[in-house]
């Protein structure tokens, strides 16, 4: 388990990092943040970059702060930083819950928020929560700063809309609106494993009527996706078990090209998506009712 040789640069500022990136062939550079996905690939020699660009000495990319109506999370903030953040706990319990589902302590202590977004694993929790919450991803490149909606950021398996010369700097997570009921659930072999399939549901109740629905399925196909047909079934209706079942069936039917691999068949994933949709909607409604919404 030894990486193939590479050169290593750990610049102290983002400008220097961008300069190094622009001076090298982007196909031969790998960017190191927490390293909890990249280091295994290097150790297994599945990745053999000529240059490893380490961002972890760049202080300006860390930290978690409040920002009009949401949280600003530096790309290099670790999952442990999120777990320890009273601000996240208070402002966004869904983001907190998803954090604790990731890996185990060793991984969360090093793995970064930005790294998980850029890795764009279809079974990872953070991209799914980013899509559900309508997060914004901020990138810097030769052309300056660019703000990308989560739904436009994740393209397919391990692929984002970041351009070769760009570096993700910040993730902006909107606060949950008052009265929002939410749920994130997944099926994994063990706690901390990548999900075989997972679901996120969010909604509010106005006079007992479901509004502002978000249903996201992850782990089931090439990326985390919203399921608007399931959302539309519930919007403007009083929540009921029959409607949750209908939404679950709609999710199962509309799932495009479900993943079929050694962990689970496509048909199994389709059924899991249906079941987890029902379970998360049920829990989200319970939370919305509990909040007095």
């Amino acid at each position, binding site marked *: *388990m*030894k*990486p*193939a*040789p*590479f*050169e*290593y640069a*750990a610049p102290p500022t983002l400008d220097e990092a961008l300069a190094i990136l622009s001076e090298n062939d982007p196909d031969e550079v790998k960017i*190191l943040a927490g*390293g*909890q996905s990249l*280091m*295994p690939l*290097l*150790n*297994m020699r599945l990745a053999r970059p000529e240059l*490893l660009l*380490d961002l*972890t000495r760049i202080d300006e990319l860390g930290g978690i702060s409040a920002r009009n109506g949401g949280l600003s999370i530096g790309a290099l903030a670790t999952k*442990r930083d999120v777990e320890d953040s009273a601000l996240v706990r208070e402002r966004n319990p869904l983001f907190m819950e998803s954090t604790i589902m990731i*890996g*185990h*302590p*060793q*991984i969360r*202590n*090093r793995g970064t928020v930005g790294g998980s977004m850029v890795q764009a694993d279809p079974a990872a929790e953070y991209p799914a929560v980013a899509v559900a919450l309508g997060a914004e991803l901020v990138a810097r490149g030769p052309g300056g700063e660019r703000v990308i909606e989560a739904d436009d950021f994740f393209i397919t398996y391990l692929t984002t809309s970041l351009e070769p010369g760009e570096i993700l700097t910040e993730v902006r997570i909107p606060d949950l609106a008052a009265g929002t009921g939410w749920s994130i659930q997944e099926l994994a072999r*063990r*706690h*901390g494993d990548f999900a075989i399939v997972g679901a996120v549901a969010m909604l509010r109740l106005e006079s007992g009527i479901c509004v502002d629905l978000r249903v996201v399925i992850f782990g089931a196909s090439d990326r985390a996706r919203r399921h608007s047909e399931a959302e539309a079934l519930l919007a403007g209706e009083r929540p009921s078990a029959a409607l949750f079942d209908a939404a679950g069936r709609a999710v199962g039917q509309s799932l495009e090209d479900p993943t079929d691999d050694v962990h689970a068949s496509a048909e199994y994933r389709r059924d899991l998506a249906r079941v987890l949709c029902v379970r998360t909607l049920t829990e989200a409604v319970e939370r919305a009712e509990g909040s007095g919404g």
Partner: protein
Amino acid sequence: MSKRHVTTTIDGEGREFLCEDWQTLLDVLRDVLMKTGTKEGCGTGDCGACSVLLDGRLVCSCLMLAAEAEGRVIETVEGMAEGDRLHPLQQHFLQEAALQCGICTPGFLVAARALLAQNPDPSEREVRFWLAGNLCRCTGYDKIVRAVLAAAAEMRGAEA
């Protein structure tokens, strides 16, 4: 290519070493500094055998470069005993027979030490969740969990 010079603190001692840019902290600990108490299992962050503390935080030393250790404080299993006197965790691992082949043990000891530093009175559930990143193929975990809980109780008693 010239080697990189890294200055760090390991198990309470200032240490300098030379490494290649692509060497992991684990490889430098074992092959350069000859601190072979820290073990290599998977090299992918799944097994926890290489666990060390980095500025007090539990990490897999196979998933960080030695170059990243510049200016950092590293603690390994080799800093746990004081001379011939074992750390309470080590003593209770022996008493509870919480090991068989032993390759996972250094990682479990370091991970358990990190847990007790932040939570001196963990529940069994908290111990099991915290140690989820450490794999043992011999014991079935139950003896390990009992050893950690017993060591925690002894350490709380010593402070009282």
